[in-house]
């Protein structure tokens, strides 16, 4: 599979990163290489094999519906890039 510039721009947009034209060129090649490497798997016959949902063969791991102590609000807000009073502060949400 070939990755084109449009795809790179789409992925960059999804990832909320800005790329220079030079970087886009680099990533077009790198991602194309990775994908063609992975594409080797398509040669395997997977007809009767169910898609794997998890790599660990364990199921049904639960916790009880019990309360545990929360952290303090000071701690919760401590690492936030921006806060206001008792809240996290974020750029205005348009939607």
């Amino acid at each position: 599979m070939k990755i084109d510039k449009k795809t790179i721009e789409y992925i960059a947009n999804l990832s909320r990163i800005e790329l220079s034209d030079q970087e886009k060129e680099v990533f077009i090649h790198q991602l194309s290489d990775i994908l063609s490497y992975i594409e080797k798997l398509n040669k395997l016959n997977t007809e009767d094999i169910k898609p794997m949902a998890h790599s660990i063969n364990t199921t049904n791991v639960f916790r009880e519906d019990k309360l545990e102590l929360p952290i303090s609000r000071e701690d919760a807000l401590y690492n936030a890039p921006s806060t206001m009073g008792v809240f996290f502060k974020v750029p205005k949400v348009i939607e």
Partner: protein
Amino acid sequence: MEYEVVIGLETHAELATIAKLFCGCSTKFGAEPNTHVCPICLGMPGVLPVMNKKAFEYALKAAVALDCEINRFTNFDRKSYYYPDLPKNYQISQNYYNLGIDGHMDMFVNGSIKMVRIHNVHLEEEAGKLIHPEEPGANYSLVDFNRAGVPLLEIVSYPDMRTVDEVESYMQTVRKILLYTEVSDCKMQEGSLRFEASISLRKKGTDKLGNRVEIKNLNSMKSVIKAIEYEAMRQSELLDRGETIDRETRLWDEVGEKSQRMRSKEESQDYRYFPEPDLLPVLIDEKWLSEVKNSIPELPLARKQRFIEAFKLSDYDASILTEEKVLADFFEECVKILDRPKAFSNWIINDLLREVKDRKLDISNLPIKPGQLAALVEIIEKGTISSTIAKEVFSEMIQTGKEPQKIVEEKGMAQISDEGLIESVIDKVIAVNPSVIEDYKKGKKNALAFLVGQVMKETKGKANPKIVNELLIQKVGS
């Protein structure tokens, strides 16, 4: 042009666990902002979510109650999108192996039963709450993560509804089922039950579905109905003008009673679902599933039909009694004690519910017990108190929680059936109302009612009205 409106609904219900879905933070509503949070629900790096078993079981219970086929192998997926109310930049949800698929729900619409198919039922985590400052020109929003990670059930219907009556009934029926199965408290004002609608129009008589428009930000059942009516009108006007309908998501503006475009299909989000590596799949074995099946109570529609048949109640009475499970339970407890379904139905619907409304009582914590209402109905039937006095006794019971017999004794409210006593009062009333007696004798029959009223007044409503009537007729002649 005549169009058919095709409507599907997505229902979100917060599940009634005490702790969040993947951590031990409280789900209690109304806490101080950002106090029910921990590294897990704040999406801090390196933390590991572990599934709350009760939340999973509640979701399973709802899926079974909605007659879904249960995926015996179920798994969770990451739904990626950037939105500041979502601390991890992805929501843990289900996409590839939903808990329940292909269910259905029967509902009562305009006198007949209609079935709506359920596409899927799945479990996911709730987002936080965004607060938009009131000040004009503010360039920021505030976030409270208390709700983030609360278990959220999503029920997706097929587009099987055609009218707002059906939509109204769907919402009410889903709500009742969730309340009956006790998986959610369904408080719309607290956001624990929400709906999103998708609407498309097609020419009457054609099969092909038109482009679908989704509507979000519907804060009450009323908004859902208004938004659907608005959207059906908007689309039909566009189609009449020969325009096409864009597939898009619109936001309902509750104040302006109109919707506006939020995003088009081209801008639609790419969620990049993939299996959540931090959680393990869940296998549901036969034993577990049958336990859950057995825990499901008789559902509201079935219960209502049974009330109509077994207790000879009207459709209306049966609907009101089965509206809330606690009320239906209360009614059945009463009937078990004393076989007077019609009397209990009247007391509950006319008096108990009025008191609940007037005094803003909590219906799940009523101040009177079924045995007390049964005792009240019994002493009315025995003739110990009149039905007028019974209303006073009832009101007293609600206020004090006392037994009806005790109230009657304490307040001397017992009905007077002593003919001698009643006769003496009648004589007094006749003596002071000579003109009324004359009117009556001249044939003015309603004068009798006035006299009965006077006797009742003299006895403070306690005289047995039947005896008063009989004695009066004897005295003044018929």
